């Protein structure tokens, strides 16, 4: 039985590796996805981070020379030209009057808070205004002979325990998403070609007329596709390793480092997923009546693993998701990059479920190949 599967497997590998279009599509993914991620991260970081010297528009600056000076000491200044962020600090006309009388003086921050890339800068401006506020208030209390600490009922001190890497949760999610998804997308073309394509070219009929069981055929196909998926995973991680070096991580205060150990563990974690994904792709392709139909069905079905992975990335329903196949494996990859312990129970359970799905899809495909309707695409 193993001999027959290995003969069939060799044929599948030979045939698929000569399918230039599918190989190229896979390569585009493996090389393109990590590079695209890096470009995305770089642009995102540049927009999200508040520049060291923040230039904003300050109106009526002459009304509040002290405040302007204070902000300048924190590198927030009025500026002109392109570097200026779309934030306006407007000082009210009665600012000086109220200030000297010890009343509340009004300043306006005019900005679009829904704008992601301004958020960090607005927060920084607000934080510094609050700082100035408490400084002036303290001075006022001292002038009245009152200890300023009386106005500070609780003294909040936050000890940030986040390590530089753990801060980048979302970014890590996206990075591991691209690795997991490579197992589904890189060999997609090959999977469709070796199943729906084989049927369309009529070679499936001849294959089935030989003294072999349909399980042999399906296992050989799944094995070959999963093999290509693993190669895609290795390529994606290796390309990521080099591409991520070019991302300006220092802007965000954390780094994503993909090292050799991670690549090896990712392959081990990815193996069951590769088998499951290959058997799923082949099952769906045989379910469809034609090559074209298979392409659209596969695209739809691949939405599910992408959603699983997305849920992990966006931290949706983490309590449940951490046990689910794909999500749990991705979570394990994230923990490895963060340098934390791997959630072993979750990983083992979800890997077992993944392998179970592989067995189910393989069984269903081999059963389908016994049906005339499927073989002749009726």
């Amino acid at each position, binding site marked *: 039985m193993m001999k*027959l599967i290995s003969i069939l497997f060799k044929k599948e590998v030979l045939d698929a590796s000569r*399918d230039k279009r599918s190989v190229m599509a896979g390569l585009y993914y493996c090389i393109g996805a990590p590079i695209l991620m890096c470009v995305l991260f770089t642009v995102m970081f540049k927009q999200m981070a508040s520049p060291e010297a923040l230039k904003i528009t300050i109106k009526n600056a002459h009304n509040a020379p002290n405040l302007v000076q204070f902000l300048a000491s924190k590198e927030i200044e009025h500026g002109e030209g392109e570097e200026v962020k779309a934030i306006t600090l407007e000082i009210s006309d009665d600012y000086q009057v109220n200030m000297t009388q010890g009343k509340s003086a009004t300043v306006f921050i005019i900005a679009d808070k829904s704008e992601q890339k301004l958020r960090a800068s607005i927060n920084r401006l607000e934080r510094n205004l609050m700082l100035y506020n408490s400084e002036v208030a303290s001075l006022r209390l001292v002038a009245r002979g009152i200890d300023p600490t009386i106005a500070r009922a609780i003294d909040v001190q936050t000890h940030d325990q986040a390590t530089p890497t753990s801060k980048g949760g979302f970014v890590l999610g996206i990075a591991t998403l691209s690795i997991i998804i490579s197992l589904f997308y890189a060999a997609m073309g090959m999977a469709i070609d070796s199943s729906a394509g084989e049927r369309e070219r009529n070679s*499936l009929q001849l294959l089935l007329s*030989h003294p072999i*069981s349909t399980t042999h055929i399906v296992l050989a196909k799944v094995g070959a596709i999963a093999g290509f998926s693993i190669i895609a995973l290795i390529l994606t991680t290796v390309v990521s390793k080099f591409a991520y070096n070019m991302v300006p991580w220092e802007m965000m205060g954390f780094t994503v480092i993909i090292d050799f150990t991670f690549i090896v563990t990712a392959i081990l974690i990815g193996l069951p997923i590769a088998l499951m994904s290959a058997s799923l792709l082949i099952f769906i392709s045989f379910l469809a009546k034609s090559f074209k139909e298979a392409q659209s069905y596969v695209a739809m079905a691949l939405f599910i693993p992408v959603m699983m992975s997305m849920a992990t990335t966006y931290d949706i329903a983490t309590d449940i998701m951490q046990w689910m196949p794909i999500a749990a494996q991705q979570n394990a990859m994230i923990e490895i990059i963060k340098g934390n312990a791997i959630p072993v129970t979750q990983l083992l359970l979800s890997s077992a479920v993944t392998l179970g799905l592989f067995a189910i899809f393989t069984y269903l495909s081999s059963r389908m190949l016994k049906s005339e309707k499927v073989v002749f695409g009726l």
Partner: protein
Amino acid sequence: MIQVDNLYKKIGEVNALDGLSFTASDGQITGLLGPNGAGKTTCLRTVFGLLQADKGHATIDNIDVAKEPTKAKQQLGLFPDPCGLYERMTPREYTQFYAQLSGMEPKAAAAATQTVLEKLQMLDIADRRCKGFSQGQRMKTALAQAIVHKPTNIVLDEPTRGLDVMSTRVLRDLLLMLKAQGHCVLFSSHVMQEVAALCDHVVVMAKGKVVAQGSPQSLCEQTGKTSLEEAFITLIGTDEGIAA
């Protein structure tokens, strides 16, 4: 030996096989003759085990195809319609793959492939990928695949379609040689000359049933006609679907 016994098969609303029975013996070339849509391909596909008969059974060397498909198919060489080539493989790789699949060891398969490629005079295309092959080259490749492992029973579905005169002669010689070696050769065709020239036993079928069977000569005598073509038309009662 291939035996088909009282086969019934309904495809959609059509009774493709309607109580079909015949025997193709070893050391004989049996021709399955019938107009388009007579059920020839359906019958052969049932013999391959690709289709399951609603009733009746097909046996190869007395092994029921439906009950023990793997064992029954061990002694079967197939030339299907359509050929089912792998466009990205060369005839050598293709033939060798099927030889191994039929149970040959890699070395023996390679040697047998070389022999059959020589016999079919296709060494010039043996290591070119099948993509872009002419119909004749495709047919030869499929034929090499069908006979490489020297099965006792060889089933061919319209093997002469698209072959030029030279290739047809090669095929004819080959079938006669297989017959001389004691193989059971069963082929379907609607080309009269082919059947008349080659077959020891002709099974004329129409609408999924056997209309008549016997040697070409006995069929002529039976109908009182001089040529097989005339005899055939008399037997099926129409000239629909006959290639000259």
